[in-house]
Protein backbone atom coordinates (compact mmCIF):
# COMPACT_ATOMS: atom_id res chain seq x y z
CA UNK A 1 0.00 0.00 0.00
CA UNK A 2 1.45 3.30 -1.03
CA UNK A 3 1.17 6.20 1.37
CA UNK A 4 -0.83 9.27 0.40
CA UNK A 5 1.22 11.71 -1.65
CA UNK A 6 1.24 15.47 -1.36
CA UNK A 7 1.52 17.18 -4.73
CA UNK A 8 1.87 20.81 -5.66
CA UNK A 9 -0.03 21.59 -8.85
CA UNK A 10 0.29 24.81 -10.80
CA UNK A 11 -1.68 26.00 -13.82
CA UNK A 12 -0.55 28.76 -16.08
CA UNK A 13 -0.80 30.41 -19.46
CA UNK A 14 -4.59 30.47 -19.39
CA UNK A 15 -5.14 26.91 -18.16
CA UNK A 16 -6.13 28.32 -14.79
CA UNK A 17 -9.32 29.66 -16.37
CA UNK A 18 -10.60 26.09 -16.32
CA UNK A 19 -9.86 25.78 -12.61
CA UNK A 20 -11.78 28.80 -11.38
CA UNK A 21 -8.79 31.05 -11.89
CA UNK A 22 -6.75 29.38 -9.16
CA UNK A 23 -3.18 28.98 -10.24
CA UNK A 24 -1.88 26.90 -7.35
CA UNK A 25 -3.38 23.81 -5.84
CA UNK A 26 -1.83 21.78 -3.07
CA UNK A 27 -3.46 18.41 -3.10
CA UNK A 28 -3.01 15.11 -1.36
CA UNK A 29 -3.59 12.04 -3.43
CA UNK A 30 -5.17 9.20 -1.47
CA UNK A 31 -3.18 6.09 -0.90
CA UNK A 32 -3.74 3.20 -3.25
CA UNK A 33 -2.21 -0.12 -4.13
CA UNK A 34 -0.02 0.81 -7.08
CA UNK A 35 2.09 3.93 -7.09
CA UNK A 36 0.46 6.97 -8.68
CA UNK A 37 1.49 7.83 -12.20
CA UNK A 38 0.74 10.78 -14.45
CA UNK A 39 -2.04 9.01 -16.28
CA UNK A 40 -3.91 8.43 -13.06
CA UNK A 41 -3.21 11.96 -11.93
CA UNK A 42 -4.89 13.33 -15.03
CA UNK A 43 -7.95 11.25 -14.36
CA UNK A 44 -7.96 12.46 -10.76
CA UNK A 45 -7.65 16.10 -11.84
CA UNK A 46 -10.46 15.73 -14.30
CA UNK A 47 -12.68 14.23 -11.68
CA UNK A 48 -11.86 16.45 -8.74
CA UNK A 49 -10.48 19.78 -9.90
CA UNK A 50 -11.61 20.50 -13.43
CA UNK A 51 -14.66 22.70 -13.22
CA UNK A 52 -15.60 23.11 -16.86
CA UNK A 53 -14.80 22.16 -20.44
CA UNK A 54 -12.77 19.01 -19.89
CA UNK A 55 -12.04 18.76 -23.60
CA UNK A 56 -9.88 21.87 -23.33
CA UNK A 57 -7.56 20.16 -20.86
CA UNK A 58 -7.50 16.44 -21.46
CA UNK A 59 -7.71 14.59 -24.71
CA UNK A 60 -8.06 10.87 -24.42
CA UNK A 61 -5.41 9.61 -22.04
CA UNK A 62 -3.14 12.58 -22.20
CA UNK A 63 -3.30 16.34 -22.01
CA UNK A 64 -4.64 18.32 -24.91
CA UNK A 65 -1.95 19.19 -27.47
CA UNK A 66 -0.68 22.64 -26.70
CA UNK A 67 -0.40 22.14 -22.96
CA UNK A 68 3.14 22.00 -21.68
CA UNK A 69 3.73 19.84 -18.62
CA UNK A 70 6.70 20.39 -16.34
CA UNK A 71 7.57 17.94 -13.59
CA UNK A 72 9.86 19.52 -11.01
CA UNK A 73 10.78 22.18 -13.57
CA UNK A 74 11.80 19.70 -16.23
CA UNK A 75 9.87 18.89 -19.38
CA UNK A 76 7.82 15.77 -18.85
CA UNK A 77 9.17 14.25 -22.03
CA UNK A 78 12.41 13.82 -20.17
CA UNK A 79 10.65 12.04 -17.31
CA UNK A 80 8.67 9.53 -19.29
CA UNK A 81 5.47 11.52 -19.90
CA UNK A 82 2.48 9.51 -18.79
CA UNK A 83 4.48 6.69 -17.25
CA UNK A 84 6.27 8.87 -14.74
CA UNK A 85 5.57 7.74 -11.20
CA UNK A 86 4.71 10.50 -8.80
CA UNK A 87 6.66 11.05 -5.64
CA UNK A 88 5.87 12.96 -2.53
CA UNK A 89 6.25 16.75 -2.78
CA UNK A 90 6.48 16.70 -6.56
CA UNK A 91 5.74 19.95 -8.35
CA UNK A 92 3.69 19.56 -11.52
CA UNK A 93 3.01 22.56 -13.74
CA UNK A 94 0.52 22.70 -16.61
CA UNK A 95 1.03 25.65 -18.93
CA UNK A 96 -1.25 26.32 -21.85
CA UNK A 97 0.69 27.57 -24.87
CA UNK A 98 -2.39 28.20 -26.96
CA UNK A 99 -3.38 31.42 -25.34
CA UNK A 100 -0.41 33.21 -26.70
CA UNK A 101 0.37 36.78 -27.46
Amino acid at each position, binding site marked *: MAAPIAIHLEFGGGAELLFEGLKEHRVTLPSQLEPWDMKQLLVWIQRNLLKERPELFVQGDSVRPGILVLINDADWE*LMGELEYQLQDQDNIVF*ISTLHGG
Partner: protein
Amino acid sequence: MCQVVEEYPDQLERADLPSVSKKCGKCKEASTAVVIRTADTYCRGCFKEYFVHKFRATLGKNRIIFPGEKVLLAVSGGPSSCAMLNQVQEGLNQNAHKKLRFLPGIIYIDEGCAVNQTVEERQRKVSELQAVFKAAGFPFHIMPLEQVLDLPNSVVVAAPSPSEQLASTYKAAVDHFIQAKRSNDLTAQDQEETSVPYVQESHTQRLQQLIGSAKTLTAREDLLNTLKQHLLVHIARSKGYSKLMLGDNCTRLAVKLLTSISLGRGAQLAQDTGFSDSRYGDIIVVRPMRDYSANEIASYNHMFNVPCVVIPSLNTKTPDRASVHCLTESFVTKLQVDFPSTVSTIYRTSEKLQTAGRSSISTNLCDRCLLCMCTMDTAVEKASAFQATQVSTQLSQAKPTGSPEQPTASGQCCSGAGTEGCGSGVGCCSSASVKTPDLKSLLCYSCQLTIKDMLSVEHLPAYILSEAQRRLRRFRMREDISEFLLDDGDEGGDV
Protein backbone atom coordinates in the same frame (compact mmCIF):
# COMPACT_ATOMS: atom_id res chain seq x y z
CA MET B 1 -2.10 9.46 -42.30
CA CYS B 2 -4.70 11.93 -43.38
CA GLN B 3 -7.71 10.36 -41.74
CA VAL B 4 -9.96 12.14 -39.32
CA VAL B 5 -9.43 9.71 -36.49
CA GLU B 6 -5.83 8.77 -36.43
CA GLU B 7 -4.49 5.77 -34.66
CA TYR B 8 -0.85 5.05 -34.65
CA PRO B 9 -0.29 1.47 -33.66
CA ASP B 10 3.10 0.33 -32.67
CA GLN B 11 4.46 0.43 -36.17
CA LEU B 12 5.64 3.95 -35.54
CA GLU B 13 8.82 3.69 -33.56
CA ARG B 14 9.36 6.34 -31.02
CA ALA B 15 12.88 7.66 -31.03
CA ASP B 16 14.68 7.06 -27.80
CA LEU B 17 13.30 9.59 -25.42
CA PRO B 18 16.01 11.62 -23.82
CA SER B 19 15.77 11.17 -20.11
CA VAL B 20 16.53 13.45 -17.27
CA SER B 21 19.34 11.26 -16.06
CA LYS B 22 21.29 12.26 -19.12
CA LYS B 23 23.41 15.30 -19.03
CA CYS B 24 22.79 18.53 -20.84
CA GLY B 25 23.59 18.27 -24.51
CA LYS B 26 25.65 21.40 -24.48
CA CYS B 27 27.65 21.75 -21.30
CA LYS B 28 27.53 18.06 -20.47
CA GLU B 29 27.50 18.89 -16.80
CA ALA B 30 24.14 19.82 -15.36
CA SER B 31 21.08 17.66 -15.71
CA THR B 32 18.67 18.33 -18.52
CA ALA B 33 15.57 20.36 -18.03
CA VAL B 34 14.25 21.39 -21.41
CA VAL B 35 13.80 19.61 -24.70
CA ILE B 36 14.17 21.72 -27.78
CA ARG B 37 13.41 20.29 -31.20
CA THR B 38 13.17 16.74 -29.89
CA ALA B 39 16.83 15.92 -29.98
CA ASP B 40 18.47 18.83 -28.21
CA THR B 41 18.28 18.76 -24.46
CA TYR B 42 19.52 21.67 -22.43
CA CYS B 43 19.98 22.38 -18.76
CA ARG B 44 18.60 25.56 -17.23
CA GLY B 45 21.74 27.60 -17.65
CA CYS B 46 22.39 26.61 -21.24
CA PHE B 47 18.74 27.12 -22.10
CA LYS B 48 18.85 30.67 -20.82
CA GLU B 49 21.99 31.38 -22.82
CA TYR B 50 20.41 29.90 -25.91
CA PHE B 51 17.25 31.95 -25.44
CA VAL B 52 19.02 35.22 -24.82
CA HIS B 53 21.47 34.71 -27.63
CA LYS B 54 18.74 33.97 -30.14
CA PHE B 55 16.99 37.24 -29.43
CA ARG B 56 20.07 39.36 -29.95
CA ALA B 57 21.16 37.36 -32.95
CA THR B 58 17.79 37.81 -34.63
CA LEU B 59 17.92 41.55 -34.17
CA GLY B 60 21.54 41.81 -35.11
CA LYS B 61 21.27 39.60 -38.16
CA ASN B 62 18.51 41.63 -39.69
CA ARG B 63 20.10 45.00 -39.10
CA ILE B 64 16.88 46.87 -39.17
CA ILE B 65 16.89 48.56 -35.83
CA PHE B 66 19.43 51.29 -35.79
CA PRO B 67 21.13 52.40 -32.59
CA GLY B 68 19.32 55.12 -30.72
CA GLU B 69 16.06 54.49 -32.51
CA LYS B 70 12.79 54.66 -30.69
CA VAL B 71 11.05 51.30 -30.77
CA LEU B 72 7.54 50.64 -29.53
CA LEU B 73 6.92 47.24 -27.97
CA ALA B 74 3.37 46.01 -28.34
CA VAL B 75 2.70 43.99 -25.21
CA SER B 76 -0.59 42.16 -24.88
CA GLY B 77 0.20 40.58 -21.52
CA GLY B 78 0.54 37.16 -23.07
CA PRO B 79 3.61 34.97 -22.71
CA SER B 80 5.33 35.86 -25.99
CA SER B 81 5.12 39.60 -25.65
CA CYS B 82 6.12 39.48 -21.99
CA ALA B 83 9.10 37.32 -22.88
CA MET B 84 9.97 39.91 -25.51
CA LEU B 85 9.75 42.69 -22.96
CA ASN B 86 11.94 40.69 -20.61
CA GLN B 87 14.54 40.14 -23.31
CA VAL B 88 14.63 43.82 -24.19
CA GLN B 89 15.12 44.64 -20.52
CA GLU B 90 17.97 42.18 -20.23
CA GLY B 91 19.50 43.32 -23.46
CA LEU B 92 19.60 46.93 -22.43
CA ASN B 93 20.83 46.27 -18.92
CA GLN B 94 23.91 44.26 -19.45
CA ASN B 95 27.28 45.54 -20.35
CA ALA B 96 27.90 42.31 -22.17
CA HIS B 97 28.64 42.07 -25.83
CA LYS B 98 25.80 42.40 -28.30
CA LYS B 99 24.11 44.87 -26.03
CA LEU B 100 20.93 46.30 -27.47
CA ARG B 101 21.06 49.93 -28.35
CA PHE B 102 17.61 51.29 -28.95
CA LEU B 103 15.13 53.25 -26.89
CA PRO B 104 12.06 51.18 -26.09
CA GLY B 105 8.58 52.21 -25.10
CA ILE B 106 5.66 49.95 -24.25
CA ILE B 107 2.09 50.04 -25.53
CA TYR B 108 -0.76 47.96 -24.24
CA ILE B 109 -4.15 48.04 -25.90
CA ASP B 110 -7.03 47.24 -23.63
CA GLU B 111 -9.56 45.35 -25.72
CA GLY B 112 -11.79 44.36 -22.86
CA CYS B 113 -14.83 45.83 -24.58
CA ALA B 114 -14.55 43.42 -27.48
CA VAL B 115 -14.60 40.51 -25.06
CA ASN B 116 -17.42 42.00 -22.99
CA GLN B 117 -15.43 42.45 -19.82
CA THR B 118 -16.83 44.68 -17.14
CA VAL B 119 -15.16 47.96 -16.33
CA GLU B 120 -13.88 46.60 -13.01
CA GLU B 121 -12.32 43.57 -14.64
CA ARG B 122 -10.62 45.73 -17.21
CA GLN B 123 -9.27 48.05 -14.56
CA ARG B 124 -7.96 45.14 -12.58
CA LYS B 125 -6.06 43.72 -15.51
CA VAL B 126 -4.75 47.15 -16.43
CA SER B 127 -3.36 47.73 -12.95
CA GLU B 128 -1.70 44.32 -12.95
CA LEU B 129 -0.01 45.21 -16.18
CA GLN B 130 0.89 48.66 -14.98
CA ALA B 131 2.85 47.09 -12.16
CA VAL B 132 4.74 44.94 -14.65
CA PHE B 133 5.50 47.88 -16.91
CA LYS B 134 6.65 50.08 -14.07
CA ALA B 135 9.08 47.41 -13.01
CA ALA B 136 10.46 47.34 -16.55
CA GLY B 137 11.44 50.98 -16.36
CA PHE B 138 10.45 52.08 -19.85
CA PRO B 139 7.86 54.69 -20.73
CA PHE B 140 4.57 52.94 -21.26
CA HIS B 141 1.21 53.81 -22.74
CA ILE B 142 -2.07 52.12 -22.05
CA MET B 143 -4.80 52.70 -24.58
CA PRO B 144 -8.34 51.42 -24.61
CA LEU B 145 -9.39 50.05 -27.96
CA GLU B 146 -12.23 52.58 -28.01
CA GLN B 147 -9.67 55.17 -29.07
CA VAL B 148 -9.83 53.63 -32.50
CA LEU B 149 -13.10 55.43 -33.11
CA ASP B 150 -11.31 58.76 -32.96
CA LEU B 151 -8.43 58.09 -35.27
CA PRO B 152 -7.62 60.49 -38.10
CA ASN B 153 -7.72 59.50 -41.76
CA SER B 154 -3.97 59.54 -42.00
CA VAL B 155 -3.82 56.15 -40.31
CA VAL B 156 -4.94 54.30 -43.42
CA VAL B 157 -2.74 56.32 -45.69
CA ALA B 158 0.73 54.92 -46.12
CA ALA B 159 3.21 57.58 -45.28
CA PRO B 160 6.36 57.82 -47.31
CA SER B 161 9.17 55.89 -45.75
CA PRO B 162 12.09 57.86 -44.39
CA SER B 163 15.40 57.98 -46.19
CA GLU B 164 16.51 54.53 -47.08
CA GLN B 165 18.18 52.85 -44.16
CA LEU B 166 20.37 50.45 -45.98
CA ALA B 167 22.15 47.57 -44.34
CA SER B 168 25.41 49.07 -45.48
CA THR B 169 24.88 52.16 -43.40
CA TYR B 170 24.11 50.00 -40.37
CA LYS B 171 27.71 49.31 -39.49
CA ALA B 172 28.60 52.96 -39.88
CA ALA B 173 25.67 53.95 -37.69
CA VAL B 174 26.73 51.52 -34.97
CA ASP B 175 30.32 52.76 -34.97
CA HIS B 176 29.20 56.34 -34.85
CA PHE B 177 26.87 55.55 -31.98
CA ILE B 178 29.54 53.81 -29.94
CA GLN B 179 31.86 56.78 -30.34
CA ALA B 180 29.17 59.24 -29.39
CA LYS B 181 28.32 57.15 -26.38
CA ARG B 182 31.75 57.54 -24.99
CA SER B 183 31.07 61.20 -24.48
CA ASN B 184 27.55 61.03 -23.15
CA ASP B 185 25.55 58.12 -21.87
CA LEU B 186 22.39 57.07 -23.55
CA THR B 187 19.74 58.99 -21.69
CA ALA B 188 17.00 56.50 -21.01
CA GLN B 189 13.61 58.00 -21.45
CA ASP B 190 11.93 59.03 -18.28
CA GLN B 191 8.94 57.06 -17.28
CA GLU B 192 6.15 59.57 -17.40
CA GLU B 193 3.10 58.99 -15.30
CA THR B 194 0.70 58.54 -18.15
CA SER B 195 -2.81 58.05 -16.95
CA VAL B 196 -5.16 55.75 -18.76
CA PRO B 197 -7.55 57.75 -20.93
CA TYR B 198 -11.10 57.74 -19.68
CA VAL B 199 -13.46 55.67 -21.78
CA GLN B 200 -16.92 56.89 -22.56
CA GLU B 201 -19.70 54.38 -22.21
CA SER B 202 -21.07 55.35 -25.61
CA HIS B 203 -17.78 54.59 -27.28
CA THR B 204 -17.69 51.17 -25.69
CA GLN B 205 -21.16 50.48 -26.97
CA ARG B 206 -20.34 51.66 -30.47
CA LEU B 207 -17.33 49.42 -30.58
CA GLN B 208 -19.30 46.48 -29.31
CA GLN B 209 -21.89 47.17 -31.98
CA LEU B 210 -19.17 47.17 -34.58
CA ILE B 211 -17.67 43.90 -33.44
CA GLY B 212 -21.12 42.43 -33.08
CA SER B 213 -22.04 43.31 -36.65
CA ALA B 214 -19.61 40.67 -37.86
CA LYS B 215 -21.47 37.41 -38.05
CA THR B 216 -18.68 34.91 -37.78
CA LEU B 217 -15.88 34.66 -35.25
CA THR B 218 -13.37 34.62 -38.08
CA ALA B 219 -14.56 37.98 -39.32
CA ARG B 220 -14.62 39.35 -35.81
CA GLU B 221 -11.04 38.28 -35.16
CA ASP B 222 -9.93 39.79 -38.43
CA LEU B 223 -11.72 43.04 -37.76
CA LEU B 224 -10.33 43.30 -34.26
CA ASN B 225 -6.82 42.69 -35.53
CA THR B 226 -7.17 45.34 -38.18
CA LEU B 227 -8.43 47.93 -35.71
CA LYS B 228 -5.66 47.07 -33.26
CA GLN B 229 -3.03 47.44 -35.94
CA HIS B 230 -4.38 50.82 -36.94
CA LEU B 231 -4.34 52.01 -33.36
CA LEU B 232 -0.80 50.73 -32.83
CA VAL B 233 0.45 52.49 -35.92
CA HIS B 234 -1.26 55.70 -34.98
CA ILE B 235 0.24 55.69 -31.51
CA ALA B 236 3.67 54.88 -32.85
CA ARG B 237 3.40 57.79 -35.26
CA SER B 238 2.06 60.27 -32.75
CA LYS B 239 4.64 59.46 -30.10
CA GLY B 240 7.53 59.53 -32.49
CA TYR B 241 8.43 55.84 -32.68
CA SER B 242 9.80 54.55 -35.93
CA LYS B 243 9.61 50.82 -35.26
CA LEU B 244 6.94 48.59 -33.81
CA MET B 245 7.83 45.26 -32.23
CA LEU B 246 5.23 42.53 -32.12
CA GLY B 247 5.54 39.40 -30.03
CA ASP B 248 4.38 36.77 -32.50
CA ASN B 249 6.11 33.47 -31.85
CA CYS B 250 6.95 30.67 -34.27
CA THR B 251 3.94 28.52 -33.48
CA ARG B 252 1.56 31.42 -33.78
CA LEU B 253 3.06 32.49 -37.09
CA ALA B 254 2.86 28.97 -38.47
CA VAL B 255 -0.83 28.92 -37.58
CA LYS B 256 -1.22 32.40 -39.03
CA LEU B 257 0.38 31.31 -42.27
CA LEU B 258 -2.05 28.48 -42.82
CA THR B 259 -4.99 30.55 -41.66
CA SER B 260 -4.05 33.37 -44.02
CA ILE B 261 -3.94 31.02 -46.94
CA SER B 262 -7.38 29.72 -46.04
CA LEU B 263 -8.71 33.25 -45.82
CA GLY B 264 -7.34 34.35 -49.15
CA ARG B 265 -4.40 36.37 -47.91
CA GLY B 266 -1.87 34.45 -49.94
CA ALA B 267 -0.58 37.57 -51.64
CA GLN B 268 0.24 39.22 -48.32
CA LEU B 269 1.86 36.26 -46.61
CA ALA B 270 5.37 37.63 -46.72
CA GLN B 271 4.33 40.79 -44.92
CA ASP B 272 2.01 39.09 -42.47
CA THR B 273 4.54 36.55 -41.28
CA GLY B 274 7.94 37.90 -42.16
CA PHE B 275 10.44 39.47 -39.83
CA SER B 276 9.86 43.01 -41.02
CA ASP B 277 6.75 44.52 -42.52
CA SER B 278 6.92 47.88 -44.23
CA ARG B 279 3.37 48.33 -45.45
CA TYR B 280 2.80 51.46 -43.40
CA GLY B 281 5.71 53.29 -44.94
CA ASP B 282 7.15 55.21 -42.04
CA ILE B 283 6.57 52.63 -39.31
CA ILE B 284 8.25 49.28 -39.76
CA VAL B 285 6.75 46.33 -37.93
CA VAL B 286 9.29 43.88 -36.58
CA ARG B 287 8.76 40.40 -35.17
CA PRO B 288 11.80 39.42 -33.12
CA MET B 289 10.16 36.44 -31.43
CA ARG B 290 9.39 34.59 -34.63
CA ASP B 291 12.16 32.05 -34.03
CA TYR B 292 10.86 30.86 -30.69
CA SER B 293 8.31 28.10 -30.41
CA ALA B 294 5.48 28.54 -27.93
CA ASN B 295 6.87 25.75 -25.76
CA GLU B 296 10.26 27.40 -25.44
CA ILE B 297 8.67 30.64 -24.40
CA ALA B 298 6.40 28.96 -21.85
CA SER B 299 9.32 27.04 -20.36
CA TYR B 300 11.48 30.15 -20.18
CA ASN B 301 8.75 32.24 -18.61
CA HIS B 302 8.13 29.63 -15.97
CA MET B 303 11.74 28.94 -15.15
CA PHE B 304 12.83 32.53 -14.94
CA ASN B 305 9.69 34.03 -13.48
CA VAL B 306 8.78 36.35 -16.28
CA PRO B 307 5.60 38.08 -15.20
CA CYS B 308 2.68 37.84 -17.56
CA VAL B 309 -0.99 38.51 -17.26
CA VAL B 310 -3.56 36.26 -18.85
CA ILE B 311 -6.27 38.27 -20.51
CA PRO B 312 -9.20 36.54 -22.16
CA SER B 313 -9.56 37.17 -25.86
CA LEU B 314 -12.17 36.49 -28.49
CA ASN B 315 -11.28 32.86 -28.87
CA THR B 316 -10.72 31.88 -25.25
CA LYS B 317 -12.56 28.70 -24.33
CA THR B 318 -14.06 28.40 -27.78
CA PRO B 319 -14.43 24.95 -29.30
CA ASP B 320 -12.09 23.83 -32.04
CA ARG B 321 -14.34 24.79 -34.91
CA ALA B 322 -15.35 28.23 -33.77
CA SER B 323 -13.23 30.02 -36.34
CA VAL B 324 -10.72 29.27 -39.05
CA HIS B 325 -7.92 30.34 -36.74
CA CYS B 326 -9.04 27.98 -33.95
CA LEU B 327 -9.35 25.08 -36.32
CA THR B 328 -5.94 25.67 -37.83
CA GLU B 329 -4.39 26.06 -34.40
CA SER B 330 -5.82 22.78 -33.19
CA PHE B 331 -4.72 21.10 -36.42
CA VAL B 332 -1.14 22.30 -36.16
CA THR B 333 -0.75 21.61 -32.45
CA LYS B 334 -2.19 18.12 -32.77
CA LEU B 335 0.07 17.35 -35.69
CA GLN B 336 3.02 18.74 -33.78
CA VAL B 337 2.59 16.13 -31.05
CA ASP B 338 3.38 13.24 -33.32
CA PHE B 339 5.46 15.07 -35.89
CA PRO B 340 7.54 17.54 -33.91
CA SER B 341 8.99 19.25 -36.93
CA THR B 342 5.63 20.50 -38.19
CA VAL B 343 5.90 24.01 -36.87
CA SER B 344 9.49 24.51 -37.91
CA THR B 345 8.77 23.23 -41.42
CA ILE B 346 5.91 25.66 -41.86
CA TYR B 347 8.03 28.42 -40.42
CA ARG B 348 10.87 27.72 -42.78
CA THR B 349 8.48 27.91 -45.68
CA SER B 350 7.42 31.35 -44.56
CA GLU B 351 11.04 32.46 -44.42
CA LYS B 352 11.35 31.83 -48.12
CA LEU B 353 8.50 34.15 -49.00
CA GLN B 354 9.30 37.58 -50.26
CA THR B 355 7.18 40.35 -51.62
CA ALA B 356 7.50 40.80 -55.36
CA GLY B 357 9.70 43.63 -56.45
CA ARG B 358 7.52 46.72 -56.63
CA SER B 359 9.00 49.49 -54.55
CA SER B 360 6.55 50.74 -52.00
CA ILE B 361 7.21 54.40 -52.68
CA SER B 362 5.97 54.39 -56.20
CA THR B 363 2.81 52.51 -55.41
CA ASN B 364 -0.23 54.61 -56.06
CA LEU B 365 -2.45 55.29 -53.11
CA CYS B 366 -5.38 53.54 -54.72
CA ASP B 367 -3.38 50.39 -55.07
CA ARG B 368 -3.48 49.66 -51.36
CA CYS B 369 -6.21 47.90 -49.48
CA LEU B 370 -8.16 50.28 -47.28
CA LEU B 371 -8.12 48.05 -44.22
CA CYS B 372 -4.96 46.01 -44.23
CA MET B 373 -2.80 48.48 -46.18
CA CYS B 374 -1.23 45.80 -48.33
CA THR B 375 -0.89 46.03 -52.05
CA MET B 376 -4.08 45.07 -53.78
CA ASP B 377 -4.30 41.67 -55.32
CA THR B 378 -7.57 42.05 -57.14
CA ALA B 379 -6.48 43.08 -60.59
CA VAL B 380 -8.75 40.77 -62.44
CA GLU B 381 -7.08 38.78 -65.15
CA LYS B 382 -8.90 36.58 -67.54
CA ALA B 383 -9.32 33.00 -66.37
CA SER B 384 -7.99 33.69 -62.90
CA ALA B 385 -9.58 32.13 -59.85
CA PHE B 386 -10.61 35.56 -58.64
CA GLN B 387 -12.49 36.30 -61.81
CA ALA B 388 -14.33 33.02 -61.46
CA THR B 389 -15.51 33.92 -57.96
CA GLN B 390 -16.63 37.31 -59.18
CA VAL B 391 -18.62 35.83 -62.03
CA SER B 392 -20.34 33.36 -59.75
CA THR B 393 -21.16 36.14 -57.27
CA GLN B 394 -22.71 38.23 -59.99
CA LEU B 395 -24.72 35.34 -61.34
CA SER B 396 -26.07 34.47 -57.93
CA GLN B 397 -27.06 38.06 -57.30
CA ALA B 398 -28.55 38.81 -60.73
CA LYS B 399 -32.04 40.23 -60.34
CA PRO B 400 -34.82 38.87 -62.60
CA THR B 401 -35.36 42.21 -64.33
CA GLY B 402 -31.83 41.98 -65.50
CA SER B 403 -30.69 45.37 -64.28
CA PRO B 404 -27.45 45.15 -62.39
CA GLU B 405 -26.98 47.06 -59.15
CA GLN B 406 -27.13 50.78 -59.55
CA PRO B 407 -23.75 51.81 -60.75
CA THR B 408 -22.82 55.21 -59.53
CA ALA B 409 -23.44 57.00 -62.80
CA SER B 410 -20.97 59.59 -61.90
CA GLY B 411 -20.20 60.50 -65.43
CA GLN B 412 -23.64 61.86 -66.05
CA CYS B 413 -24.33 63.87 -62.99
CA CYS B 414 -21.09 65.35 -61.95
CA SER B 415 -19.82 66.59 -65.22
CA GLY B 416 -23.21 68.18 -65.65
CA ALA B 417 -22.88 69.87 -62.28
CA GLY B 418 -20.47 72.33 -63.68
CA THR B 419 -16.95 72.98 -62.68
CA GLU B 420 -17.24 71.37 -59.31
CA GLY B 421 -15.83 67.93 -59.08
CA CYS B 422 -17.25 65.06 -57.14
CA GLY B 423 -15.67 66.43 -54.06
CA SER B 424 -18.63 68.61 -53.30
CA GLY B 425 -20.89 67.17 -50.67
CA VAL B 426 -20.62 63.89 -48.94
CA GLY B 427 -20.43 61.66 -51.93
CA CYS B 428 -21.39 61.42 -55.51
CA CYS B 429 -24.67 63.16 -56.01
CA SER B 430 -26.40 60.43 -57.97
CA SER B 431 -25.69 57.48 -55.78
CA ALA B 432 -28.44 56.58 -53.36
CA SER B 433 -26.20 54.91 -50.80
CA VAL B 434 -24.25 57.99 -50.00
CA LYS B 435 -23.73 57.27 -46.35
CA THR B 436 -22.29 53.77 -46.63
CA PRO B 437 -19.89 53.57 -49.53
CA ASP B 438 -19.40 50.37 -51.37
CA LEU B 439 -16.06 49.33 -49.99
CA LYS B 440 -15.48 46.28 -52.14
CA SER B 441 -13.41 47.96 -54.79
CA LEU B 442 -11.10 49.42 -52.18
CA LEU B 443 -10.28 46.18 -50.41
CA CYS B 444 -8.05 43.23 -51.05
CA TYR B 445 -9.69 39.84 -51.43
CA SER B 446 -9.59 38.70 -47.83
CA CYS B 447 -10.73 42.05 -46.43
CA GLN B 448 -13.64 41.84 -48.85
CA LEU B 449 -14.55 38.51 -47.29
CA THR B 450 -14.47 40.05 -43.83
CA ILE B 451 -16.73 42.90 -44.91
CA LYS B 452 -19.06 40.46 -46.58
CA ASP B 453 -19.52 38.79 -43.23
CA MET B 454 -20.64 42.01 -41.65
CA LEU B 455 -24.28 42.92 -41.47
CA SER B 456 -23.55 46.47 -42.41
CA VAL B 457 -20.51 48.64 -42.76
CA GLU B 458 -22.06 51.72 -41.22
CA HIS B 459 -20.62 50.89 -37.81
CA LEU B 460 -17.08 51.12 -39.04
CA PRO B 461 -15.13 53.96 -37.48
CA ALA B 462 -15.41 57.34 -39.11
CA TYR B 463 -11.87 57.44 -40.40
CA ILE B 464 -12.36 54.30 -42.48
CA LEU B 465 -15.62 55.46 -43.98
CA SER B 466 -14.42 58.95 -44.79
CA GLU B 467 -11.20 57.68 -46.34
CA ALA B 468 -13.29 55.26 -48.38
CA GLN B 469 -15.46 58.11 -49.61
CA ARG B 470 -12.42 60.10 -50.52
CA ARG B 471 -10.85 57.29 -52.49
CA LEU B 472 -14.07 56.50 -54.30
CA ARG B 473 -14.45 60.13 -55.28
CA ARG B 474 -10.91 60.26 -56.56
CA PHE B 475 -11.43 57.08 -58.48
CA ARG B 476 -14.54 58.41 -60.16
CA MET B 477 -12.87 61.69 -60.90
CA ARG B 478 -10.00 59.84 -62.45
CA GLU B 479 -12.39 57.88 -64.58
CA ASP B 480 -14.08 61.06 -65.67
CA ILE B 481 -10.94 62.65 -66.92
CA SER B 482 -9.24 59.47 -67.97
CA GLU B 483 -9.49 60.25 -71.63
CA PHE B 484 -7.63 63.49 -71.08
CA LEU B 485 -4.86 61.97 -69.06
CA LEU B 486 -1.55 61.05 -70.57
CA ASP B 487 -0.77 57.44 -70.11
CA ASP B 488 1.14 56.54 -67.02
CA GLY B 489 4.67 55.59 -67.67
CA ASP B 490 5.13 57.37 -70.90
CA GLU B 491 8.60 58.49 -71.72
CA GLY B 492 9.76 61.98 -71.17
CA GLY B 493 6.70 63.04 -69.25
CA ASP B 494 6.51 66.50 -70.67
CA VAL B 495 3.20 68.27 -70.29
